[in-house]
Each structure stands twice: as structure tokens, then as C-alpha cells.
């Protein structure tokens, strides 16, 4: 029984490959359209997995509270105590005016000579605050920063809310654009595969009528066409991964130097095994879906 089943599956596979090999131009167009759709999915994966790294979102957000000149040293500790009570705070560090100048001196290095002409220290004392992950939620971050801004000891707050807002918007827009474009391409691929399968069925109409005549079940006739679609999808997926790898290898060496300058990482990683599997799976699903769509459209025609 099991052997008979395996034999039948091999038969369907063989027929599917055979259908594909005689499919000619229409099969090539179908595979190409799937390849284009899946290239977008590859691009989506790469961009998504590098966005967080690129914009340092994995690290915790840092906020600097600059204190007013008038704040005396004995008010520092109660203020630090007050701030520590906020549950959004992961760590807090007081930077005195002297320490700030020292740091600035260090940053300027050889150019620190320009500071020698200063009569007094112009840098304010501050609290460097590290926020936890919960505080990354933009509304919560806004609310906390607003509470600190109105404290009598605080001159200003530097928290990067605008930056996070813009970045979040950019990421969402990018993802939506890729999904939209990918979705359209997937729909186009589905219809191209459906018409390819439709043509194959049409070319083999006589053979199919003989199959029906000798008692073949509906699925015995349809399965090779379903397999044809799935094979086209997986072929399209394989081609997409290969082309994407070529693209990746060519670009990697050219853009690596720029990455270090612009972002906080120096290398783009290729798709993970899980992502490769998903691309092939999506390809197979698009192919199989196209075949099913073809069956559906044909049954609709014959009504």
C-alpha cells in the first residue's frame, strides 16, 4: 500500500517535471515572475534583520538631563534619588561640570588647546540616564521626558524622541512598501502560473479526456499540474536565492567601508537558513496556489 502510494507520488512528480519541460516560454515567464516576487522577500528579510543593528535600536536609549547653573551640590543627591524611582530608568550617572569639561577635553584630543582661553567652565552638570526597553515605546518616552523637563533643577532634556519617531515611521513605511510591492508581485505570479497551467491543461485536453474515460479520479488528473506549479515555485525560489547571493557578494565588498562610517556595524549578513527555507516555502505555496487558481478558474468556465 505504502509502496503504491510512493509510486504514485513519484509518478505525479515525474509528470509535473515533464509538464514543466514542455511548458516552454510560458513556464520560463512563470518561474521568472516568482523569482522577482521572491527577490523582494529576500530584500525584505535583509533590510528587516539589519535595521535594528543599523540604527542601534538594540541598545538601550540614553537621555541626558542638563542641570541649571543655579543648582547647588547639595540638591544633586535628592534629585538623583528622585529620578532613580522612575521604573523606566536602568542606570543613572551624575556628570559634574568638571567631569564634563574633562570628557570634552578628552574628545577634542590635540584640539583641546582651544579650551585654554576659557575663563570659566561653560559646560553644565548633567545626569546621563539609561532607559530600559519598556521606555522605547514612543508615547511612554515622551511622557517621561516631559515630566523631567518641568523639574525646577532641569535646564533641558536631550532624549532623541524625534529621531525615534522618524526612524519608526521610516521603518514602517519601508516595510509597508516592500509588503505592498511583494503582494502585487505575488498576485501577478499567481495569475501567470494559473495561465501557464491552464495552457498545459489545454494542450493535453485529449490526453485528459482519455484519462477520464479510463476511470482516472479528478485528483489523479490534477495532481501532476499541482506539482508542476509547486516545482515552478521552488525553482523560482532557488533562482531568487541564487541571484540574491550574487547581488550580495558583488555589493558586499563595495558597501562595507560605507557601513562602518554611517552605521554601527561593518558587515551585512546573508539570509539565514530559516529565511532561505521560508523563501522556498513561499515559492512552493505561490506555485501550488497558482495551480489551484487555474483549477478554480477552469471549473468556473465549465459551469
Amino acid at each position: 500500500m505504502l509502496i503504491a502510494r510512493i509510486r504514485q507520488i513519484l509518478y505525479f512528480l515525474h509528470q509535473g517535471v515533464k509538464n514543466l519541460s514542455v511548458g516552454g516560454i510560458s513556464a520560463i515567464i512563470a518561474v521568472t515572475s516568482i523569482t522577482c516576487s521572491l527577490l523582494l522577500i529576500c530584500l525584505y528579510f535583509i533590510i528587516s534583520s539589519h535595521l535594528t543593528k543599523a540604527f542601534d535600536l538594540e541598545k538601550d536609549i540614553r537621555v541626558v538631563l542638563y542641570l541649571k547653573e543655579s543648582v547647588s551640590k547639595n540638591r544633586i543627591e535628592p534629585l538623583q534619588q528622585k529620578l532613580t524611582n522612575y521604573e523606566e530608568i536602568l542606570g543613572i550617572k551624575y556628570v559634574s561640570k568638571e567631569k564634563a569639561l574633562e570628557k570634552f577635553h578628552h574628545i577634542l584630543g590635540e584640539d583641546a588647546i582651544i579650551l585654554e582661553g576659557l575663563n570659566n567652565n561653560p559646560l553644565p552638570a548633567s545626569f546621563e540616564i539609561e532607559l530600559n526597553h519598556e521606555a522605547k515605546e514612543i508615547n511612554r518616552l515622551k511622557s517621561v521626558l516631559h515630566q523631567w523637563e518641568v523639574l525646577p533643577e532641569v535646564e533641558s532634556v536631550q532624549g532623541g524622541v524625534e529621531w525615534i519617531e522618524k526612524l519608526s515611521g521610516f521603518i514602517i513605511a519601508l516595510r509597508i512598501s516592500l509588503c505592498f510591492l511583494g503582494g502585487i508581485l505575488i498576485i501577478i505570479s499567481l495569475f501567470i502560473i494559473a495561465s501557464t497551467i491552464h495552457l498545459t491543461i489545454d494542450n493535453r485536453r485529449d490526453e485528459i479526456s482519455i484519462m477520464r474515460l479510463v476511470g482516472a479520479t479528478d485528483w489523479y488528473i490534477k495532481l501532476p499540474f499541482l506539482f508542476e506549479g509547486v516545482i515552478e515555485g521552488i525553482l523560482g525560489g532557488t533562482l531568487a536565492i541564487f541571484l540574491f547571493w550574487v547581488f550580495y557578494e558583488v555589493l558586499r565588498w563595495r558597501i562595507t567601508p560605507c557601513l562602518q562610517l554611517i552605521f554601527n556595524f561593518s558587515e551585512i549578513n546573508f539570509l539565514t537558513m530559516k529565511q532561505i527555507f521560508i523563501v522556498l516555502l513561499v515559492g512552493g505555496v505561490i506555485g501550488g496556489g497558482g495551480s489551484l487558481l487555474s483549477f478554480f478558474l477552469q471549473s468556473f468556465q465549465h459551469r
Partner: protein
Amino acid sequence: MQPLSAIVQMFHVYKTFDDNYRALIDINLRIEKGEFLFLVGPSGAGKTTLMRLLFREERASSGQIIVYGRNINKIKAGRIYQLRRKIGVVFQDFKIIPTKTVFDNVAYVLQVLGQPKSEIERKVYAALNRVGLEKRMDHYPKKLSGGEQQRVAIARAVVNDPVLLLADEPTGNLDADRAHEIMKLFNDINLHGTTVLMATHNIGLVGKMKKRAIYLREGKIAHC
């Protein structure tokens, strides 16, 4: 369970097509098990339509058709294959697949049924032997004569031992000698127990075979 004596029974069967053309009118027919029956009549008399009703290529507009104990009008579309596995059909234009060898054309029926390879080989060889084509099993149809192609179609129709063999003008495209050979073949199949219903407009052929014949004219049975 009593053995079936009638393979086909038709009760007041009518067939009207969409354009209101009445192809069959009040057909009542009984074909006994093991019988060889001719369906005779001029072109357009309704012979092919009657055949097509029997393997559910067409559905009767009214009336009942019982084939091998089953009311075939009530068979759901998805179950028609069960009926067809019990029936062999031979056409005037052979309907064999040109891209498959003689062996594969016949083996196809058994592959559809999911039979094991060894069984398929044994049965196909026996069927081809029966029609005298065992030495040409690796040939493609285009290398065969019309008579040989029809014999491939007959081998395909009988390879699964059907209870009923339907032949629609099987000698229509053949010369007299080839037609005679084919008729001998059908007679031989019938002698082995298969019920045969053959449609033809060749009354001479029917006369030679000395079998029961039903005459159809304008969709009605004229006489038996």
C-alpha cells in the same frame, strides 16, 4: 446476492440537448450479461448519444439507466470514475495518446488504478497478445496502421477485464479486411464473457455476425 443477468437496463430514457434537439426518445433497453448487441442506424439516429449515456459522458434528461446494478443517473460527478473502471470504450477515431508507446497506452489504465508494476506488465502483455500486438509494444502509434491503432484501443479497453465493452463505430475508419479482423477480435472478447455493445451503420457487418441488433431512427428504437 443473486448473479446479475442484465448488465444494462434503460427505462423510458430521453435525452434533449440545450438547443431543444431531442437525441433520444423513450428508450427502453435490456442487455443481458455476456450478450453481443448491435446498435444500428443512420448517422444522427442517436447511437453515439446512447453510448455516451452509458459511461456518463452525457446525462439522461429523464428516465433511469441501470448499469451493472447501479442507477448511473444518481452517481455524483466525483464518483463517475468508479463506473468507468468497469466499462471499456472503443471509438471510431481510436483516441490513443500519440506521445506514448503501445505498451504505455495500454498500461495507462492500470497505472490510473495504482496497480503494481509487475501486475501491469503481465496484464498489458496478455492484452496485447490477445489483439496480436505483443511484438509492437515499443512502437509509437504513428508507426502503426489504422487497424493496428484500433487494436491498441481494444487492448486498452479490455486490459482491466471490463464487464461491458462499448464500441462506437470501431470499424468506421478501416477497410473491409481490417474491419473483419476487428470484428473477429470483438467476437473473441465476447466469447470470453465480456458483454459487448457495438454501434455501427454497417448493416452488412451486422448480418455476418448473426447477433441481436437494435435499430435506432431519429432517436427512437425502430425495432429489435
